[in-house]
Each structure stands twice: as C-alpha cells, then as structure tokens.
C-alpha cells in the first residue's frame, strides 16, 4: 500500500513542479492554472497520506531513512507522526490558498512568482518532516531563500531592504542553531552511537548541564525569531506589510508555524532540563508579546500591519502554552497554531483583496464594506471572530485548552493569559468595526467576492468551522506524539494528565 516514498514526494513534488514552471512563462493564465494544479496535487498527496494512516493507524509514525553522508552519520531521515501530519496538511492547504489568493501580485513575472511559492512549500514540508538534525537545519535555512525572493521581487514599498532584514534576522538565529547542531553531533560522536544526527539518538545524550543550556539557548533563539517572540520580532511587521499576499500567507501560515513546531519537536525533547529551567523566561516573553502586540496593533492604521501584530500576540500565547508544562496547554498550542494559520491566512488574503480594490489598506479609506460587499464582509467577520476565539470557530478550541492548561499549572499565568486574550479582542473588534461597519470613508465602489475569492474564503471558513466544531480528529492525531514529548520533558506531568489529553 505504501510503496511510494510519500514523504519524499510531499517535499520534492512542489520543487519539481517549480522547476517546470518556466515552460509556462509566456501566459499568465497558464502559470496560474499550472501552479494551482501543482498545489492541488500536493494537497491531494497530503490527503492521501492521511487516508493511508486512517486506514491502518498502526503505521504511524512513518519513516523514510537513507544514508546520506555516512562519514558523519548524517542520514536523510523523514518521519511523519501525527504532529508532523497536521502541519503537513496545513502546508498543503495554505499552498492551495496561496495560488487562489494571488491575482494582482503575479503581474510582472508570473512563472517566477509561482515557482517561488512552490519552492517555499517544499522547504517548509521539509522542516516539518525532517528528523535528522542536519537535514532539519538544511531545510530551516533553505526555507528563507524563496521567501526572500518573494518579498524582494514581488513586494511593495522598500521591498529590498525589508527582504534583507527578514533574511538577516532569521539567518542569525539559524546559523547559531547550526553551530549548536554541529556541537550536538560532536557530543554524540563521543557517545555509544557514534556520529549521528538522528533526533531520537540525540535526545538520549547526557550533556553537561551548562552546555545543554547554551545549546538550548541557540536553538530557542532561532525558533523565537521565527515565531516571533518579543523582543526578536522586529522583522515581522515590515515583512508582512511589504510582502505580496501569498508571501504574507506563507509567512503567517507556515513560517511562523515552523518556529512553534520546532520548539515542540526539537528544543523540548533535546534539552528537557534547560527547557524546564528557562520556561518562566519564555512564558513571560510570550505573555509580554501578547499584551505588547495588542497595544501596538491598536495604533496601526494599515489593515495588514494590524493583522501582522496580531500574529505576534497569538504566537506569544502559543509559546507560553508550549513551555508551560501542561499537556493540555501543549495540545492547545498546536490547535491554536493551526487555527492561527487559517485565520491569519484568511485575514491576510482579505487585506490583499482590500489593497487590490482600493489601492490602499489604510483604515482611512475603509468602512461600510458590510453594506457594499456583503459576502466579503461575512467572510471577514468570520475570520475576525475565529481569531478572537468565538466558540464554535477554530480559535476557541486552542485558546480554551491553553487557558485551562495554564490555570492548572499556575493561576497567575492563566490569569494573565486570559487578560491578554481580552486585550486581543479590543483590536480585533476595532478591525471589524473600522473596515466593515460604520460610515464608508470613501466613495469608491467595493466589488464583492469573485467566484475564485469565494472559493478561497469558503475553504478557509469551512476549515475554521471544522476545527471549531469537530476538533476531535486533530486532537487525537496529535495526542500520541505530544504524549511522548511531554513524557520526556515533564515526566510527572505526562502521567497525570494523559487522560485529559483530549
């Protein structure tokens, strides 16, 4: 049944599709159709992998493992367990959304534009699937390159400066992590397994305490920049604002998620002691981010910038949940990251539509869209409400789990988290009010959703509803891998709360 190397295909199919892209460069329509077809095939493969697992659950996690650089013990190891699978599916889904959301940004060089999106999908899938640390570090660095070009070539404003800023911020973290990965490999070479970069082997290393803490710091710095955690978030608002729509979707929906995912998958199990020791720092930074982002978001005059700051807040809460030591909050963080991928994806797509229609995304020209374009307004409102964690929509599940989890661990943290979520409500309601309702501040007409945009928003809204109403499948699929990780990092916690995992 699983004869084909599905995981490898998931990574390399978009890359292969991107290589063939120049063949279509003569016609923009051909580029669009071909790119959409490639993204749909990727999504279909992700779905197929899910189905393969659904049929025979015992085959989770699936592994593809080939010797790569034998002299150093580096292997090409891809592992797909439930946690990876959720993000792989999200990546494929966002990929389709990217293809649907781009109409005005692909004007100048459509073939290059879609090829970069496809390359980006490939590298992100690699990050979610690699369990050899060297391979992971390679994909981690590589994922910056297509996004760099995407922002720099197709962005707006001072796009070249923004693209380089984005790249440098990420590269600082990435290279320090790279050094830490090398150091881990060297420690492993002295150990019983010989040189290896396999995640599973490295989690069993007994590192000196101080070393482990330094290495943890290097890993976490890299992930924190990507997440982004205050105070290393400075690249994000600029990058989001100037990026083309698909670039924003990829940044918010995928790249930020790679940070959270890597924190769970790599930083926690590799350095459990350091993770516990530094958890308070990360929690505080995450919660500060939540309040800070709400505060700054309130002052924004640009729809996209406001949504960008909301990303910082939501991901800050996710970080606080990930390191909290509560298995429930950890699961909540994963759901929340998926939900955030969907809601911010929807909001960025619609911010892009506003920009296309009005020529500006400033609140000064908005207002009254609800009356001008009811379908657009409805979709926008659903995204805002899902982001604000209205029960029944995707945001609620994650945030509820996080809050319950945090309260069980520490009442003060939980209280601050709730307060922070209340703060997010303020700017989200302002976002809805100033765009949808109130008197229109501009006489310009506002076309309602076209069939293509309707399809895009319908897919996103349905996904939000699905996670909001039936989170069961997602929760059950991530429960086993999260149990294992929690068991490694907080042995006591895991045994107590495993039953509450759902």
């Amino acid at each position, binding site marked *: 049944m699983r004869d084909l190397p599905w995981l490898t295909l998931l990574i390399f199919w978009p890359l292969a599709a991107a290589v063939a892209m120049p063949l279509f460069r003569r016609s923009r329509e051909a580029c669009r159709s071909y790119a959409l077809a490639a993204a749909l095939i990727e999504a279909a493969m992700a779905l197929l992998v899910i189905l393969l697992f659904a049929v025979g659950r015992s085959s989770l996690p699936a592994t593809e493992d080939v010797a790569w650089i034998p*002299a150093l013990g580096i292997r090409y190891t891809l592992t797909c367990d439930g946690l990876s699978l959720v993000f792989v599916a999200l990546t494929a889904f966002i990929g389709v959304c990217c293809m649907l959301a781009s109409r005005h940004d692909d004007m100048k060089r459509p073939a290059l534009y879609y090829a970069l999106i496809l390359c980006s999908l490939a590298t992100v899938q690699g990050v979610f699937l690699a369990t050899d640390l060297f391979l992971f570090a390679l994909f981690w660095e*590589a994922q910056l390159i297509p996004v760099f070009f995407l922002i720099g070539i197709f962005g707006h404003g001072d796009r070249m400066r923004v693209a380089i800023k984005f790249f440098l911020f990420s590269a*600082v973290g990435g290279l320090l992590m790279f*050094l830490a990965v090398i150091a881990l490999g060297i420690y492993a070479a002295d150990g019983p397994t010989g040189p290896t970069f396999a995640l599973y082997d490295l989690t069993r290393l007994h590192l000196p305490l101080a070393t482990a803490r330094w290495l943890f710091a290097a890993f976490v710095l890299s992930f924190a920049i990507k997440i982004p955690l205050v105070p290393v978030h400075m690249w994000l608002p600029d990058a989001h604002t100037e990026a083309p729509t698909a670039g924003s979707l990829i940044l918010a929906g995928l790249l930020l998620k790679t940070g959270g995912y890597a924190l769970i998958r790599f930083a926690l199990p590799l350095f459990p002691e350091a993770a516990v020791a530094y958890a308070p720092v990360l929690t505080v930074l995450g919660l500060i981010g939540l309040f800070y982002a709400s505060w700054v978001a309130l002052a924004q005059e640009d729809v996209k910038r406001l949504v960008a700051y909301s990303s910082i807040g939501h991901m800050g809460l996710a970080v606080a949940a990930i390191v909290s030591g509560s298995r429930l909050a950890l699961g909540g963080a994963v759901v929340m990251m998926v939900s955030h991928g969907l809601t911010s994806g929807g909001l960025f797509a619609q911010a892009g539509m506003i920009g296309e229609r009005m020529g500006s995304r400033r609140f000064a020209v908005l207002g009254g869209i609800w009356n001008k374009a009811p379908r657009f307004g409805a979709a926008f409102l659903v995204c805002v409400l899902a982001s604000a964690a209205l029960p029944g929509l995707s945001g609620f599940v994650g945030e509820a789990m996080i809050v319950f989890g945090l309260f069980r661990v520490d009442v003060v943290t939980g209280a601050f988290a709730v307060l922070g979520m209340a703060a997010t409500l303020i700017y989200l309601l302002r976002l809805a009010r100033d765009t949808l309702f109130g008197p229109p501040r501009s006489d310009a007409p506002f076309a309602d959703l076209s069939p293509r945009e309707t399809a895009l928003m319908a897919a996103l809204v349905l996904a939000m509803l699905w996670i909001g109403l039936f989170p069961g499948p997602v929760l059950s699929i991530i429960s086993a891998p999260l149990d294992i990780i929690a068991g490694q990092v907080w042995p006591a916690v895991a045994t107590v709360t495993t039953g509450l995992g759902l």
Partner: protein
Amino acid sequence: MPAQLTGLFPDLIPHMALAAGGLATLGAAIFRRGAPKGLLPILAALFALVPGIWAFQSGPDASGMTRFYAGLLSAITLGTIGLLARYADERKFSGDALYGLTLWSALGMLLLAEATDWLMLLLGLELASLCLYALVAARLNDRLGAEAALKYFLPGAVALATLTFGISLIYAGSGTLDIADSLAAGGPIVTAGLALALVGIGFKLSLAPIHLWTPDTYQGAPAPVAAFLSTGSKAATAAALLHLCADASPDAMGVLSPALVAISGLSMAVGNIGALRQKSVKRLLAYSSIAQMGYIAMAALAVESGGGEAALFYLAAYALMDLGAFGAVGALSGDAADRDAITSYQGLGYDHPWLAGALAFCLLSLAGLPPTAGFIGKFLVFGAALRAGYTGLAVFGILMAVIGIFYALRLVATLYMRESVEAYPAVPAPAGPAAGLTLWAVAAGLLWLGVWPGPLMAAIAKLVGGQG
C-alpha cells in the same frame, strides 16, 4: 590500472604535463603563426586535463595530497582556460604567453601544494606567483591591470624575502630542509623561522592584517585571471599552511596557535566587514575571499581534529564558488572594462538569466546557504573548530558569516530586485560557449557537492588517511 601509466616517473606525470603544456603552447604559436584562434586554448586545455585524469587513474602509492591537488588544480586550470578563451580574444590579449603562463602557474601551485621540502615549497610558491604577476598584467594597454600587477608584485617580493629568511632560520635551527623533520626538531630559532614563514604564506593567502594587496589586485586583474588567482593560488597556499600546522611541534604550535586564532578571527572580521562597504563587485569578492581564508585558517588550527579534511573540502568548494563568481563577472562584462560597479548589475538577473543565475548561485554558496557546497563546507569547518575546542572562535566566525550573508544577498538582490538602469547597458561582450559551459559546470558542481558531498568527503578521508 596503474599499468597503463607506468613510465619512468609515474608520479611526475601531472608536473610534466603542465610543464610540457606550457612549452607546447609557446611552440605552437612560434611554428604556426596563422593557427586558427581556438588552437591555443584547446591545446592548453588538453594538457591541463592530464593531471585530472592522472588523479583518478594513479595507483595507491601516489601521495594523497598530490592526487587531490592534481585533480583540483586540473579543474581550476581547465575552468580558467574556458573562461579566458573568448574573454581574452574579444579584448585582444589572447596569445601563447597567456596559456603558457597559466599552465606553468598551475605547475607551481601543484609543487607548492605537495611540497614536503622547504625549497620545493619556496620554488612552487615563486613559480606560481611570478606567472601570476605577468598574468594580472596580461592586458597590455590596461593601466588598471598594470597597477594591480605592481601592487601584487612589490609586497609579494617582500613576502618572498620574509619567507626565505624564515626558511633559512628554520634550516639554521634544525639542520634539515625537510618540512616535517625540521619542524619536529623544535627550538626557539625554528619557531621564529616558522613564524616568519607563516607571514610569507599568510600574505599569499591574504590573511589579515597582510591582506591589503588583495582588493586592488583583484579589481585590476582581468576577471578570469582574478578567478584563477583567487582559487588556484589560494588553494595551493592553504595546503602549505595545513602542512605546517600538521607538522609543527607542540611547543611551536603553543606559540603559533594564539597568533593563528587572532589572524583567523581578524581575517573573518576584516573580510566580511570590509566587503560591506564596497561599491565594486570585484573588490567585494576580494574581501569575501579574505574572509573565506579566515575560515580556512580556523580549519588549519583544528588540523588534528579533522580540520585537514574539512579544509580540503572547503577549498574545493571555495575554488568552485570563486571561479564561478569571477568567471560570471567576466562573462557579463563589456569589452571596454569589466562590469564592476554594483549598481551596474541592476536587473541583470532578467536580462541574462543563465549567466546571472550562475553568479547568484555562487554568491549563495559563498554565503553558506543550502543547498550549496558552501553550506556543507561551513558545516565541516565549524565542526572541526568545535571539536578542537575553539568554541569562541567558531561563534565569532558564525556571527561574521551572517555579515557575509548580508553582502552576498545585497548583490543577489541587485541582480533581481532592482530595475535595470539605462546608464548601464546590459549587453556584455560575447562570453562564448566555453565560458558558459564552465560556469554551468561550476554551478552544477556546487549543487552536487551541496546535495551529495559524501563521495568527495570519502575520497578526501581516504587520501589524507593514506598519507598519514
């Protein structure tokens, strides 16, 4: 296998091929005045190919270092000839001397790389350098080139004197000219001599603080010559540095390693930070090569902990990247002068997708980004440094590497993220099929080493292991 090559001196085949090749190109020009244009480069390329074939064919008794360098220098020389052929032709300085000097310079580099004797080291270094001085000035009516050659030659002569004095001290202190024996002898005089010898070698490697000639010379030299200079002579001199670090006695290393740490750190800092402020692409690449040599010096420090293998891999990768980068600059240049100002590269990525694509790929590799050979090279070099315990230097080096990413990206961004400017016509002189082929072979090599480094690493480990 060695049977088909066993002559009188099987181990000397690469050297004789290079020497005879130089003579043959000169002779061909004398005896056939009206020879077709392509004759000289093709003849030179055929001779340059011999060491490469020998490297793959020779028996296990050949020295590992020689085999590695025969292969590497053969590739570099072939690449240089490919890049040079049409370039020199278009600019009217192609001739027998150009190819003859290239081959002889390669011979000097080979002798330098495999030298186990101080005199041979000196001879190789000087043969390589003397030919290079002339090559830099090969374009006769080009004042910049002549100035560059002078700026390379005068300090080079001082460096040679320093090296010679260092060698004489070593000989005085140890009584032998064999590198390993003399360094094993130890003692203060030998250590002082070694320090002076390192100054001479450091000059050729453009290690800070004796790097000042590099940007001027690279900027003034014709781009393909700069490619040859920055890859071949650097690779060969780095071999000498590795050799010295591997053979130096523990007490000599005790004195030298702090100095090397400082030099390595300084080179990374000066190279990377210096490149930030450049408005000229060739100067930028020159500073970048200073920084790359800092990484090599770091690997040389860690030579006991696998730094040797790491450095050899890095050198192979570096040779490809710089050959490609300078080669692309040459291929993209108009016939009056090389395309040098960074602003003149605006939007070239779309006007010349293949040539500029090769340049961008080499730059990404210089920055150490995956999936290129530069990424694997950095991995190996930093791994060796960490294993040898130079943690601080490694962290410093990584931070400097981020700066390296910045200027490489700035140039890549200029290629793709700016609109082309009317003032800088996008039309280069025809680069010819050989240059295009070379650039694409280089890019393919970088990708291949980046994705599949195993075979080369295994080969290097075998060669180094076989030697020691």
